[in-house]
């Protein structure tokens, strides 16, 4: 297990495994882009509409033909795809047909807002879920646990959009405490307090609708951990129950939690799309919908690539996290060896 010659070998193995992962990542992204490209081209609808708007109606067949030619829409799909790919490799993602500007610019202005909402929500969930989970597991089947489980199940079931509506109804319409839409009051773009006030309700929805899922997961994992034999040994040493819970059971749950949280990054970010729509919050959620509706190909490709890359990246991150952190999986190969031995 030790030995000097093992180190370089380890590093080499590490590099090859990282290389493999990178390759897999690139291939996955390529297949994803091809898939989205084909599906979007196959669906009916006229991209000219989004480019020229109502003017299309008045255009002659010849003019339309010329316009299609200019936008490269007459080539076979694979040629279009290759051309798109070439452009992307040069850093050119094309222009949005609808907004008539570079797609990166279209997205750039809005992605910050989405990241702000999703990111802060994620941090809240990430920190609160273990607390709730531990509280529940500590009071297993007693009153606090039961109450939390009831409340959690109900909030976890409420669809995001309805929760948003109810919150708007209460806090914006009836109580008039908080604004009901937008990311800032027009004219007060740089007022931090104003931004926070606008963020509060959407954030509450994002956190409330996801929190219980993770808290419940931690609760259940902790419950099976406190039934493990090592708890007896730890208590036999003379540790406090709280020390056993936090020092022995939690470290066993942590790797699984981290990797699930990593997988959930796109999920939580994606959840903001709906919230953005209800609160008319200028993020990229509404963009996806619009671009697919109106055949804004370049915008659509970039958006779906971004989402897809986040998903694939987070999945790989999760895998790596659990491999790095969890000593059990870290030596899974040894483990499988042992299992095989015993058969």
């Amino acid at each position, binding site marked *: 297990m030790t030995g000097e010659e093992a180190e370089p070998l380890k590093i080499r193995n590490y590099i090859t495994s990282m290389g493999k992962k990178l390759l897999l990542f690139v291939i996955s992204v390529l297949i994803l882009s091809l898939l989205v490209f084909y599906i979007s081209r196959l669906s009916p609808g006229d991209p000219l509409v989004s480019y020229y708007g109502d003017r299309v109606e008045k255009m002659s067949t010849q003019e339309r033909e010329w316009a299609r030619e200019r936008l490269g829409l007459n080539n076979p799909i694979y040629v279009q795809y290759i051309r798109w790919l070439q452009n992307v490799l040069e850093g050119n993602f094309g222009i949005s047909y609808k907004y008539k500007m570079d797609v990166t610019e279209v997205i750039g202005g809005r992605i910050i807002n989405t990241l702000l909402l999703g990111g802060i929500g994620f941090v809240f969930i990430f920190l609160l879920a273990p607390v709730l989970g531990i509280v529940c597991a500590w009071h297993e089947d007693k009153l606090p646990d039961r109450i939390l489980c009831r409340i959690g199940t109900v909030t976890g079931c409420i669809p995001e959009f309805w929760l948003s509506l109810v919150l708007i109804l209460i806090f914006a319409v009836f109580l008039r405490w908080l604004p009901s839409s937008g990311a800032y009051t027009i004219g007060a773009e740089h007022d931090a307090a104003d931004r926070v006030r606008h963020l509060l309700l959407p954030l509450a929805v994002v956190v409330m609708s996801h929190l219980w899922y993770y808290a419940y997961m931690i609760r259940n994992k902790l419950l099976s951990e406190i039934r493990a034999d090592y708890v007896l040994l730890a208590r036999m040493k003379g540790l406090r129950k709280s020390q056993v819970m936090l020092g022995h059971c939690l470290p066993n749950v942590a790797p699984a939690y981290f990797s699930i949280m990593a997988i959930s990054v796109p999920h939580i970010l994606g959840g903001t799309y709906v919230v953005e729509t209800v609160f008319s919050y200028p993020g990229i959620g509404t963009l996806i919908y619009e671009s697919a509706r109106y055949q804004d190909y370049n915008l659509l490709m970039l958006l779906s690539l971004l989402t897809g890359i986040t998903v694939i990246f987070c999945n790989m991150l999760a895998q790596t996290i659990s491999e790095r952190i969890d000593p059990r999986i870290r030596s899974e*190969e040894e483990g499988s060896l042992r299992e095989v031995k015993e058969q």
Partner: protein
Amino acid sequence: MSELLEVHNLSVSFDTPAGEIQAVRDVSFTLKAGEVLALVGETGCGKSVLCKSILRLLPDIARIKGGHILLEGVDITRYREQDMRGLRGKTFAMVFQNSMTVLNPSLSVWSQISEAVKIHGHGMSREDVERRVVELLYLVGLENLKENRRLYPHHLSGGMRQRCVMAIALAADPKLLFADEPTTALDVTIQAQILDLLKQVQAKCHTATVFVTHDLSVAAQVADRVAVMYAGKIVEIGTAKEVFHDPRHPYTWGLMQALPAFAGKRDSLYSIPGMPPTLIDPPKGDAFACRNVYALAIDYEKEPPMFQVTDTHFAATWLLDERAKELGIKAPVLSGSLCCPDSPCPDLEEDILLDVRHLTHVFAVTRKESLTAVDDVSFQIHKGEIFGLIGESGSGKSTVARCIMNVYRPTAGTVRYQGINICNPRELRAHKKLLQSARQIIFQDSDASLNQRKKVCDIITEPMKLQHVKPPRGTYRAEAAFQMQYVGLAESYLDQYPSELSGGQRQRVAIARALSMEPALLVADEPIASLDVSMQAQIVNLFKHLQKEHGFSFLFIAHDLSMVKFLCDRVGVMYQGRLVETGTVEKIFGHPVHPYTRRLVEAVPVLDFG
């Protein structure tokens, strides 16, 4: 010497939805400093619960119903959790049974040991803690661990893990150590090492020890005094010499007779009939009466009190009452002979049923790495012979069995069954029907090898339905009922699910399923490893009996040498994938040649009741 621990009339109950389980009933014993008390008895008779209730490590549903626990004269029965915490680790410590699961998998071994040192070492500097951990590692014989502090439990073998647990238990120099079956889950050779270590530590640190075991021979090796527990009560207690040489309780007689070493030349092992009672509303009178051939009428009416035999020897049986003296019931004579039964030497000229030649099986672990589980193994099994395959876990025994059953395809070598090369797909296909019904397998874990969602009746008749065998006794159900009776199960179990049966009963179902096809070759992969001693004896008797009746050939895989010695005609010893020695039972056990075999044979606890 003053008494270190006194337990007076302790009763512990679990409140479950099904009712109150009286796990420990009215138990009293004392322990002096530095003394070793062995608690023996079958599984489920309350040994572990007794220990854990003294340390107060039982779940919330358990409560101490009555009695007192005195530690150095101080009553600790009503101590609260924070008071107990000060005692745990420092005054008493415990070594647990499952060394594989008892260490925290996500913390390094070093940190787990040093944590135990720190808890009670107030004001110890870091160097002091480190020095103490190294000291402990030396004490438990793990000195080579001191260099590598980033070792996790999964890096260690079962034996090493048990040593770590010992180091943790001894961290604060406890006065009293509870050892709950510390060797049960380990291989034979490792068992002997751990037992030696316990004895050494005990001698060095002078720790009083309560040693829980179901193995009388282990108890005989370590204990000063022995307490026999049955159904939550101590039924006999005395010095080791008294209990082993002059046992008074019929249960103790039964336990001693059940040891394979005492089987002598008899053709069946003694086994205590029946099973321990469930402790929800235990039966009236003596709980052991319904398994006791010497039961008196009064046993069914009234619970016997503790009778004093000598100053130190007590037993709870009515046989010791004045009025029963005239019956003259004495302990059955144990033929303590350890000579081997001279089994009929199989006629070598007889037909060879199974011929394994140069069998090799390699598992591909990753694309580059591979693991040779079985390496050039050759042996033959004759018709009507019982062939035993022994070796420690991971030595490739099960892989051999699975190759013979065509579950794995061997990497090299041939397996011939009655001349049919079963490794050849074409020959296998040609004789598929014959092979499928003539070879049957029984697995170790009857829990996993029976489909939990099928009724016993369907499980037993599955092979017959598959092979379209017309049931000789009319219907499938009648056939299943017959097979059940045959292996000693009541017909009423037919409509039950495997989870409703006990381990021994499930294994009987598996046997009935295998035998319903009248196999010519029965492969049993550690069929008794997960069973209790008395159940083991019952199953082994059943095997012996059935084999005599049916005359099938039998490949018996086990790691329990004494059972193999009792049951088998010939034995093969496997070590790290190789078959290092084969021969008759007499040869292997009398004159082992290979060093590993010798180690194995020597590691068996010797029955030395002196």
